[in-house]
């Protein structure tokens, strides 16, 4: 071993190989199938794990250096935000409701991603694939924790955030994101990585973290935009990993192609359904708007996703089955979703409201084909009712789709005035779905989806009351009992924004005792 060898500077690629791939070995005291027991049962065939490459070629020295710098910048902003009561600088207290949905619905998924990538970061047979997944695992923990630290300051002053953990595991609309991630994590490692790295990170997180976060900046929330963009810079590494993983699986064996196609069909739809919540955050919940859901979907869904699927065509991969339907629905999604939450505003743990006149005009301009015709009259009607002191609250419980767990409010792709219902029979029971694609997902794996913990079913079965509550006493109020079981601060976490404690405090802290937004 001469000194020349060490003096010659190794290139990034060569150095990376020594620092990663070189670490692994074929075990002999225990068979490889026992050391990596989970990578064979899904039917995916991998012939050569060394063909997998991390395009960023990150090693721990660089990882610590750059991530450490990112954290230093981020926490400087979080600290300054807390010290200067930055929460009072947001455009309007309605904005804060997006953060409630964020910590209730999104941050817990970051945590799940952490644990899920720890699992595949242990289980994949290939060394570089494992390392990339491991880095993603700790990145995702970073996202969960930085979100806690950012939202912590808001939680001190506003309602709807204090019991996010308890809520995420119980509340009706939060079973949408929860079941999404539980679905991915309970699948095999290859399906998990296709679902999360690819369908979720590559195709969908841009929609959440790019236009929405730009919206947070526009609404004066520098702490959130900073964690959002800082997280997304990790996500761009994860997206690149997602693309690499998919190419790798497809190139390893032609038999993998149909399996992956089925996963893409499924996970595109699963992810898209979760984005229903994001669509209404963008169109209805950001007081100052950057871009409509429809525009965001066109840029990040249709154009960017389209480019990707054009590229994958060479492997025999086509666009996911639900692609066209998502395009049709872009004119409807946010309006139908927000209407539903407005309806169930007594049972939602953030505030709801009807859009202001200016906002209605913005929506008309952004949705010329649908808003005035289908949705404006609805909001105007509710607005009128509220003015008369009869703010509409739907006191019943919605039927949920067994797959995506969203209330059945989506309309037929061909008729926006008709609710879409689909059903399947399985072992003598009937199961209901919001769409053909959710039904397909169930029909392929009914034994999985019959396990779903459907919040409304659970309520009707009496599983969502506090111990000792007796539903048979006269005057029993089931909604109130469920909200107690949710640990809701009744009257503070729920109901309309108008008249809420958040609204009053925000105004008072601004020295505006008259109240009003």
């Amino acid at each position, binding site marked *: 071993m001469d000194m020349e060898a060490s003096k010659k500077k190794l290139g990034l690629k060569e150095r990376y190989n020594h620092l990663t791939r070189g670490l692994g070995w074929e075990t002999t005291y225990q068979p490889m199938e026992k050391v990596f027991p989970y990578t064979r049962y899904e039917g995916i065939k991998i012939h050569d794990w060394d063909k997998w490459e991390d*395009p*960023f070629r990150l090693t721990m020295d660089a990882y610590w250096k*750059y991530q450490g710098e990112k954290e230093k910048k981020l926490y400087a902003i979080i600290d300054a935000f807390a010290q200067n009561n930055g929460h009072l600088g947001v455009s309007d207290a309605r904005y804060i409701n997006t953060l409630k949905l964020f910590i209730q619905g999104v941050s817990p998924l970051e945590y799940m991603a952490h644990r899920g990538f720890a699992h595949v970061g242990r289980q994949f047979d290939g060394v570089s694939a494992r390392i990339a997944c491991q880095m993603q695992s700790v990145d995702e923990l970073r996202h969960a924790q930085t979100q806690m630290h950012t939202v912590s300051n808001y939680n001190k002053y506003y309602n709807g955030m204090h019991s996010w953990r308890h809520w995420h595991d119980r509340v009706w609309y939060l079973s949408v994101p929860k079941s999404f991630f539980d679905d991915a994590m309970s699948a095999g490692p290859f399906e998990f990585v296709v679902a999360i790295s690819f369908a979720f990170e590559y195709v969908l997180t841009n929609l959440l973290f*790019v236009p929405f976060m730009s919206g947070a*900046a526009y609404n004066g929330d520098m702490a959130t935009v900073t964690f959002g963009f800082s997280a*997304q*810079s990790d996500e761009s590494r994860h997206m690149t990993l997602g693309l690499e993983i998919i190419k790798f699986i497809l190139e390893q064996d032609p038999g993998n192609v149909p399996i992956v196609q089925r996963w893409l069909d499924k996970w595109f739809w699963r992810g898209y359904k979760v984005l229903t919540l994001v669509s209404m955050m963008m169109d209805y919940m950001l007081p100052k708007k*950057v871009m409509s859901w429809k525009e965001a979907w066109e840029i990040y869904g249709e154009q960017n996703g389209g*480019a990707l699927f054009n590229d994958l065509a060479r492997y025999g991969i086509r666009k996911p089955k639900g692609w066209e339907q998502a395009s049709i629905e872009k004119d409807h999604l946010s309006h139908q979703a927000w209407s539903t939450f407005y309806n169930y505003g007594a049972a939602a743990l953030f505030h709801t409201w009807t859009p202001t006149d200016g906002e209605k005009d913005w929506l008309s301009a952004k949705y010329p084909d649908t808003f005035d015709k289908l949705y404006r009259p609805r909001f105007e009607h509710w607005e009128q009712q509220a003015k008369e002191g009869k703010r509409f609250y739907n006191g019943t419980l919605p039927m949920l789709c067994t797959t995506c767990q969203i209330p059945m409010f989506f309309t037929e792709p061909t008729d926006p005035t008709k609710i879409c219902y689909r059903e399947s029979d399985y072992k003598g029971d009937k199961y209901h779905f919001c769409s053909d694609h959710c039904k397909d997902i169930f029909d392929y794996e009914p034994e999985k989806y019959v396990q779903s913990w459907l919040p409304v079913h659970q309520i009707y079965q009496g599983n969502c009351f506090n111990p000792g509550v007796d539903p048979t006493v006269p005057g029993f109020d089931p909604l109130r009992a469920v909200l107690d079981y949710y640990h809701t601060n009744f009257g503070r976490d729920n109901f309309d924004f108008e008249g809420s404690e958040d609204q009053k405090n925000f105004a008072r802290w601004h020295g505006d005792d008259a109240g009003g937004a």
Partner: protein
Amino acid sequence: MSKVFIAFQANEDSRPVIEAILEDNPDAVSTTSPAMVKIDCKDRLVIRRESIESRIGRSFDLQEIQLNLITLTGHLDEDDDQLTLSWKR
């Protein structure tokens, strides 16, 4: 035709990187939104280390772009001298 894109946080550190990209990729178009600059380019976009170094007067490691990167799309290929995003491989 497919577009690739890359977006950076709108701040002082990103400025030379964005300038370098716009100069090295004549087809690139940048759009500014609150707190963010997004650069789109058809099919392919290159970030060259030397172009950035000539603007900042010090050596630059391409991995540094991660500090202000928000998102990107396309296949990524990185070596010591340049980072390429493309749809054609």
